[in-house]
Structures are given as structure tokens and as C-alpha cells.
């Protein structure tokens, strides 16, 4: 049977053409223009073109597609060798009403897909092309390794979400919005000689907001960190890159570096949530009225993973016109925080403890960064105490400024057995406790954070919190 098919596919002489010189000259001209090898190829291609359905037969849709989208789709069909094209099948174009965007679901051979895909897409290619929107590949992830194993066995993947975009890195117009691990698995399988057909969903003519939204929905699964979603949202904000600029100015990020897509200990880079929370708390502290030492304030933690945090947006909008967070006090605080982190990182690195991995990045614990920036905000009106807090890295000598060991020992009577000390969680209690640690330190005579200070901070926070509750009860009674 196999032999028979092979025989049938062998090209055979089927036609002797009698035609005018004029027509034949046109055929020859066509051959030269298209750089075809011989006359046979020219005739073959002309026949294929003639047999190809009309454009209106190539696109089927129930939607009213705008002209610019139509021309993108045409361009897509001419550039990308789809399985549908090879079989003269039409593309069905659908509309996603939520994002008001057009897409098609079609098929492509692995070798063609790999040729044209780009995993390093940008949410804002016009202004932020160099910043990658996708999360980092996780090559050691068990699920990814299983995916590669499946791909090597010929797994046909589907619904890889792609944007067709030729405005940057033109040679790679298929920008992966969702499914970079599948794309990578397909690449690896191709190296092993596995070249099967996969299903893709391709969007056309997306703007920045549509792109961010489709990326968000494409990445809504339990394995995608909210930090990645925050970064996507941050790239979408206008004017672009304000938070990054703030980080470059303060030294929180190195030039050209971007926020991390999830919290990690090795190769640490702060996440969007950390820095947004830093900024919000600085202003919450600065605007605070009352006696903070007698209060039980809870520093704010920005929301993560869904929409952009509303508190952060309020501050962002205030600075929008300037196109940067141009407050010298805030920038000063950011610089001091970067200094604190650097000192903590370097000094904890010299410690001989298995916990040093976590100690090195202790400053970026969400509870610490929020409470530190709140304390710094509130102490803007108390130069002496602010200076003391800023001087912590210098006053700590060879010790890590945050005294991670002392923090790990501090515990309240009500804490569960599994509690691992200050700065290891980020709930309200923890943030309230740490705020009192920094406030207490700024007012203390001692140069370093001590065990007693950590313990006292916990006790003060809970006592004040309870006292306030009791006072409110009495107020309600009268």
C-alpha cells in the first residue's frame, strides 16, 4: 500500500503545452522574477495560484473586521506557512468582545512554528521593547520536563496564544503571549526530529492594553506567579516605566534590569509589588497624623496578581505629569533602602548558617519593606530619628543591619509553634510588629537592632492594638 502511494506521488509527464509566444514569454518572465529553477516550476506555481481560492474564500467570519485587521491577516497568511494554506482551507476569524480583538485558531508544523516564534515579546514595543513581558522559563520545572518528554513522543500541543506582530523583530512575527514553555518543548522536540502539527491561536492588531489583557488571561493558571501579572500590568501603565525609573534613580534596580516575575532567593531582583508597596507606605507614613509610637498602625501591602493596586495608582496618577516619581524625599528613602539591602546582602553572605540565603534578602521581605518605608515616611518630620534609621547599615558594623538572627528568635506567646520569627510572614500582625521595631530602633540609644528590641516591638504592637480596641469599645458605650 505504502509503495503504491509513493508511486502515485512521483511526478509524471502530464502536459505538453501549445501556446502563443507572447504567453510563453510571460511565463519565462515570471520564472525569472520569482527566481524559480526551471520552466516546469513556473508553470506549476502559476497553476497553483490559479487554483487558490479567492481571498474572501480564505477568511470566514461572522464579524465586521476592520480593514487594518484584514490586511494584517493577509500578511499573516502570506508570511506564515499554515497547514490550512497547504490544504486550501479557510481561516475562521473570531472576535473577543471583551478585549475587542480579532483572532483565529489554526495549525502549523513545528518546524515552521519554531522558525517564526519569539518568546521575548514586549507589552509596549514602541517604548519598552527591551523589557520582556513573559516570565522566565523554568527549565528545571518538573511539569516542563514532562512537557518536553511528551513533545519528544509527538505530543500535538494546542492553543498556544500568539500575537502576529511585524513591528519589531520582523523575522520573528509570532510573539508568544501564552505558552512559551510549550513553544520551548516543541523546539527541543524538533531537535530530536519530531516535527508534528500544533494548534495556535493568533491575535491581530493588538494595542498595548489588549496585549496586556490577553497575556493576563493566557497566564491565568496556578503556576503563574502574581508577580508576573503585576509586571505585565506595570508595563501597561502610561506614562511607561515610571516605577522602573524610580528604581534606577535610587539604585534599587541596575540600569536595564527589570522587576522579577516571582520572588526568588538566588539572583534576587525585587518584584513590582515590593516597590509599589514601598512607595505607598512612604506616603502613608508621611501623611500620618497622631502619635505613631502609641499607635498600632498596619503598613499597607499592595494587592498583587489582579488589577493594579488602587492605592498605588492614586500616587502614580499624582506624578503622571512629571513622568517620574519626582519627590526628593521619596528618592532619598529609596536610596537608603537600597543601601540597607546591599549591606544586609553583603553581611549576611558572610554568615555561616544554612538560613543565610533568606537572611541576605531579608530587607525585601514584604513585611520589612512595607514597615521600613512607613517608618521612614512618618519620620520625615523627625530628622534625628530618621537619620538614626538611615544610619542603621553603618552603625551595625560587621553585623547584618537587620539582625536576622535576633528577628528569627523573636516570638509572641500567641504565635503558633511553626512561627519562624519576625519578617518571615507578611500578614498584618507581622507588618505592625516590624513597624514598631523600626520606630523603636530610631528612638533607641543602642546602635544595632537587638534581641530585646525585636521582642519589645512585638509586645508593644499587640498591647497598643488591644488597648485601642478596648478604648473604642468604651467610646461606643458612651
Amino acid at each position, binding site marked *: 500500500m505504502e509503495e503504491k502511494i509513493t508511486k502515485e506521488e512521483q511526478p509524471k509527464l502530464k502536459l505538453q503545452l501549445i501556446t502563443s509566444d507572447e504567453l510563453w514569454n510571460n511565463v519565462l518572465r515570471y520564472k525569472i522574477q520569482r527566481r524559480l529553477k526551471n520552466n516546469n516550476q513556473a508553470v506549476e506555481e502559476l497553476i497553483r495560484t490559479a487554483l487558490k481560492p479567492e481571498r474572501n474564500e480564505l477568511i470566514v467570519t461572522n464579524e465586521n473586521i476592520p480593514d487594518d485587521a484584514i490586511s494584517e491577516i493577509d500578511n499573516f497568511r502570506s508570511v506564515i506557512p499554515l497547514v490550512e494554506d497547504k490544504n486550501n482551507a479557510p481561516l475562521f476569524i473570531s472576535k473577543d468582545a471583551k478585549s475587542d480583538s480579532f483572532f483565529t485558531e489554526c495549525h502549523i508544523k513545528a518546524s515552521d512554528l519554531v522558525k517564526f516564534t519569539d518568546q521575548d515579546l514586549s507589552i509596549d514595543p514602541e517604548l519598552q521593547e527591551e523589557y520582556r513581558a513573559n516570565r522566565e522559563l523554568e527549565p528545571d520545572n518538573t511539569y516542563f520536563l514532562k512537557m518536553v518528554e511528551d513533545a519528544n513522543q509527538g505530543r500535538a500541543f494546542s492553543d498556544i496564544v500568539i500575537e502576529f506582530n511585524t513591528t519589531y523583530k520582523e523575522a520573528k512575527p509570532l510573539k508568544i503571549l501564552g505558552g512559551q514553555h510549550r513553544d520551548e518543548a516543541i523546539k527541543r522536540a524538533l531537535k530530536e526530529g519530531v516535527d508534528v502539527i500544533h494548534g495556535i491561536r493568533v491575535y491581530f492588531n493588538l494595542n498595548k492594553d489588549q496585549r496586556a489583557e490577553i497575556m493576563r488571561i493566557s497566564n491565568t493558571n496556578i503556576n503563574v506567579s502574581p508577580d508576573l501579572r503585576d509586571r505585565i500590568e506595570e508595563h501597561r501603565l502610561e506614562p511607561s516605566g515610571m516605577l522602573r525609573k524610580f528604581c534606577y534613580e535610587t539604585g534599587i534596580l541596575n540600569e536595564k534590569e527589570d522587576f522579577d516575575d516571582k520572588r526568588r532567593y538566588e539572583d534576587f531582583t525585587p518584584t513590582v509589588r515590593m516597590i509599589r508597596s514601598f512607595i505607598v507606605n512612604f506616603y502613608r507614613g508621611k501623611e500620618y497624623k497622631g502619635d505613631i509610637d502609641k499607635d498600632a498602625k498596619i503598613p499597607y501591602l499592595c494587592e498583587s496578581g489582579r488589577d493594579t493596586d488602587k492605592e498605588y495608582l492614586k500616587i502614580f496618577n499624582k506624578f503622571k505629569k512629571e513622568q517620574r516619581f519626582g519627590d526628593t524625599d521619596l528618592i532619598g528613602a529609596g536610596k537608603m533602602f537600597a543601601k540597607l539591602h546591599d549591606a544586609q546582602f553583603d553581611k549576611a553572605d558572610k554568615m555561616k548558617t544554612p538560613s543565610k540565603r533568606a537572611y541576605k534578602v531579608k530587607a525585601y521581605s514584604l513585611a520589612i519593606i512595607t514597615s521600613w518605608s512607613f517608618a521612614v515616611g512618618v519620620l520625615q518630620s523627625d530628622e534625628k530619628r530618621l537619620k538614626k534609621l538611615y544610619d542603621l547599615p553603618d552603625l551595625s558594623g560587621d553585623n547584618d543591619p537587620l539582625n536576622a538572627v535576633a528577628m528569627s528568635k523573636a516570638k509572641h506567646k500567641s504565635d503558633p509553634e511553626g512561627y519562624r520569627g519576625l519578617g518571615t510572614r507578611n500578614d498584618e500582625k507581622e507588618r505592625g510588629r516590624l513597624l514598631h521595631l523600626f520606630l523603636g530602633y530610631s528612638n533607641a540609644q543602642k546602635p544595632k537592632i537587638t534581641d530585646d528590641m525585636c521582642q519589645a516591638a512585638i509586645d508593644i504592637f499587640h498591647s*497598643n492594638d*488591644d488597648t485601642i480596641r478596648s478604648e473604642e469599645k468604651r467610646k461606643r458605650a458612651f
Partner: protein
Amino acid sequence: MKTFKFYLDASNYFISNLNYGKLDKKEREYYYFASVLHSWISLESYINAISESLSKGTRIKEHQKAFLQETELRVNDDGIFHEVKIRPSTTKKNLFILHNFSDIDIKKFRQKPLWRDLKSFEDLRNKIIHHKEIEDINIDLRKAKECRDLVKETINYLNRLLFR
């Protein structure tokens, strides 16, 4: 460091995992009494620990702080304030804490079964400590378990209320 958790574990130890069959009646009673007393010690230790913690607050008044630290300011015969050591009962401290550090209505709290049970446990504790010839105390396994469970419940109740 021995905390209230240690004493609660000890209380538990004396009424669990023991081969009662091998013990005579008197020996069993030793265990029941030991369990009840450790339950009480656990409660007292917990109340003292949170009193000390709450006394560190920066918002409380001096007299509140003094009470939590088991002292009182009194005027002596020379008309001068001086600090006197006091020994308030555990149940009194419990009420003081609830009144000053929670949003609980003390009058309502005193009508709760938890408070009634605590008072009876205090009474039992006093009978054991302040022995009187006419009162013979008997504690069985059920009573010992009740006391342990009551202490657990009280500690959990206070934890929920104060340190949420």
C-alpha cells in the same frame, strides 16, 4: 524555656498514655491531681506571660502597667507614693485583661459558661492548696480532663480575642 505549653503538655501527660490497669487507686489519684495542678499552672503561666507582654505597650496608663506587673502605687505614712508588690488572682487578672485590652463586655463575659467553669476550677485549686480538714477532695479522670480542656479553651479564647 518552660512556657504554658510545657505545663499543658505535662497536664496531658498525666492523664494520657498511662497504663492505669497497673496502678492502684491511690497512684491513679496522684496522676489526676498532678494533671489538674499542671492545668492550673499552665493557665496561670499563660496569664502572667501575656500580662508581662501587654505591660510593654506604649499606650497604656501607668496604673494599668503597674497592675500587669503586679505592683500598686500607694501613699505611705509619710505621704509619699511607693510601689507595693501585689498578688492578684489569676481570674482577676484575666478579667482585667479582657476589660482593658479587648472589646468584650465584662458583664456579658461573666455570664458565660466559660467564666463559671473557670471560677469553679479556681475554687478547686484553692481547695487543694488551702487544705481544710472538713473538705476531702476527690478528682477522677473525667474531672482532670475537664480541667485540662477548660484551660485549653480559655487560652484559645484569649488568643483569638487579643492577638487576632
